[in-house]
């Protein structure tokens, strides 16, 4: 256990096949009569960056607090490798937390804050001094060692909180929306720094956020939580290209949700129809805006062509989001590169395999 672990500094994705570092097994929790988490099972691999993504009230912070030991689950177990974690008090878990508002000790200097865990662990003075130095250097806060937390900026407090947690060499670091108190620019910068720091130290991170963009940028895997239940656990790419539920499709990125009637291998949604390999009945599909294109002219028989009128155009820098009204009144969003000058009536197309069948999430179908 060295803090700077060069072996895991490579960007290779963590191996999920081996024994997980942390397993959460069927954890449930209610506050009074209000269920916050229902039957959560989730695994974190060694060195993995896992993001628990969810809206406020989804139970993500409660899950984090159960792992840290500040809350007790009503049922279920938490294991760290062969050790049962949920029976231990927080101070015996090899897990450290970066709190949302950092929770630095105001009466101690930056250095004393970082050294706190080593002091209570009664580490010999020389060792603790050098480890604190190393941790402060890692987050570039050496110059502020003597400052009290009240005298440094939010971003700096953030770094100190990170150093204070990492100096104890935890097996797992928990981060509770640590970037939400920072302004947008600093936030983007810290996302990159945090991710590269995680690669550098090779410690598994469980990162809680409500910001899907943040989750996409930083995570190896995302666990999407909704009303105390896991909607989908997958890599950002997987969750984006193959959302499991309508909610996942809408929460992560932009999408068109199409409710279609399937019969004999053909899905029909108003005037659109495309081949599918699904049994007959009603099905829900997610079609990403960038998968709708202006027809190139060459008659590729696989693609589904249709006509639509541009009724609204939103400029997003490199891309533009167009609101399309089809002849039958169906509204669709499509994304084009900027400067295409797409106006009026267009001949459009999409590939049937881009219409991803998704599970219905209750009360989540706001798209259509």
């Amino acid at each position, binding site marked *: 256990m060295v803090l700077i672990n060069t072996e895991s500094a490579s960007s290779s994705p963590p191996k999920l096949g081996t024994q997980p570092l942390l397993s959460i097994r069927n954890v449930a929790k209610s506050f009074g009569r209000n269920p916050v988490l229902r039957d959560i099972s989730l695994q974190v691999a060694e060195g993995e960056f896992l993001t628990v993504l969810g809206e406020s009230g989804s139970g993500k912070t409660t899950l984090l607090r159960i792992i840290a030991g*500040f809350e007790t689950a009503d049922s279920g177990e938490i294991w760290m490798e062969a050790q049962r974690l949920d029976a231990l008090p927080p*101070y015996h878990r090899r897990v450290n937390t970066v709190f949302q508002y950092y929770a630095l*000790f105001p009466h101690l200097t930056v250095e004393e804050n970082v050294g706190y865990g080593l002091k209570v662990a009664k580490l010999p003075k020389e060792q603790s001094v050098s480890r604190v130095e190393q941790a402060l250097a890692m987050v570039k806060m050496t110059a502020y060692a003597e400052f009290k937390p009240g005298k440094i900026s939010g971003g700096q407090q953030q770094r100190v909180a990170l150093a204070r947690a990492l100096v104890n060499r935890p097996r797992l670091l928990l981060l509770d929306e640590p970037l939400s108190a920072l302004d947008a620019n600093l936030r983007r910068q810290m996302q990159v720094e945090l991710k590269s720091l995680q690669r550098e130290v090779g410690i598994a991170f469980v990162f809680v956020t409500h910001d899907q963009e943040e989750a996409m940028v930083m995570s190896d895997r995302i666990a999407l939580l909704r009303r105390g239940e896991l909607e989908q656990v997958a890599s950002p790419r997987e969750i984006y290209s193959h959302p499991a539920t309508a909610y996942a499709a809408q929460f992560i990125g932009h999408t068109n949700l199409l409710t279609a009637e399937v019969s004999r291998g053909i899905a029909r949604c108003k005037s659109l129809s495309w081949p599918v390999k699904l049994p007959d009945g009603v099905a829900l599909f997610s079609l990403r805006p960038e998968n709708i294109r202006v027809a190139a002219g060459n008659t590729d028989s696989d693609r589904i062509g249709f006509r639509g009128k541009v009724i609204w155009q939103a400029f997003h820098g490199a891309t533009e989001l167009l609101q399309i009204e089809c002849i039958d009144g169906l509204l669709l969003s499509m994304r084009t590169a900027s400067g295409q000058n797409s106006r009026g009536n267009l001949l459009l197309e999409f590939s049937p395999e881009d219409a991803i069948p998704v599970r219905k999430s209750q009360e989540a179908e706001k798209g259509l």
Partner: protein
Amino acid sequence: MELPLRALESSVTASRWLPWHAALVFGFLYLPIVTLIVYSFNGSGVGGFPPRDLTLAWYRLLFADEAIWTSVLNSLLVAIAAVIISLGFGIPAALALDRANFPGKALFRRLVLLPLILPGIITGLSLLMLFREADIKLSLLTIALGHGTALISVATTEVFAGLQKLDRSQEEASLDLGANYWQTFRHVTLPNLRLSIIGAALLIFTLSMDEIAVSFFLIGRDNTLPLEIWGRLRRGITPEINAISSIIFVFSLFAILIWYRLRVASEVQPEIAAELLESPAQGD
């Protein structure tokens, strides 16, 4: 449109009268103290206006008065004991009120606060009866016990107010970093409560120093300062009393200054200071 205009008018008149009003209140509060101090230097005793023949004679007399100094020492001992007793019980009580959930908690809170509003006569009399039953001889110790119990409520409310302001995630951070509950209390909770505790101690000390009602019932052979003064008043006022009162006043002033310096040095938000100066009954 009329409403803002009227509001403006009234604020203009208010600003004219308010300084006078403030001066009046200030005078009402401090004129007696000023008089007390001035007459402690008056050569012709407590009577006569304006004061003449300025002298230090009363102070000289006071410094030679052994009975007064014995009573001052007694009062100091009692006050220190009262601080220790009331904080010793008050801090755990405040922690229990803040953290623990137990049946009858609401009742417990009210009962802890009861001595604040209970007249001193009741507290003194009931303690006297208790000590009689227990066959405990009245002494400075019984006074200290009396003050200590009566002032637990002050300690509890002050410390409880401090606990309410404490950022709980700091304690969680401490546990998270490997400190057990006791270490967390010692290294995180207690330092954060330092000002509340110092404030409570100063308040309890002052309240104990000038307490009469409870002391009156529990007094043994040794007088406390307020009872000594009270006893002498029955034989007529002498400027010697003014002199000792002036000295007490100056010491209280110093105590407040020291406390204020402490507060500035520890760089805590100013509202905490305001909290400490508030009446203790508001801590509920």
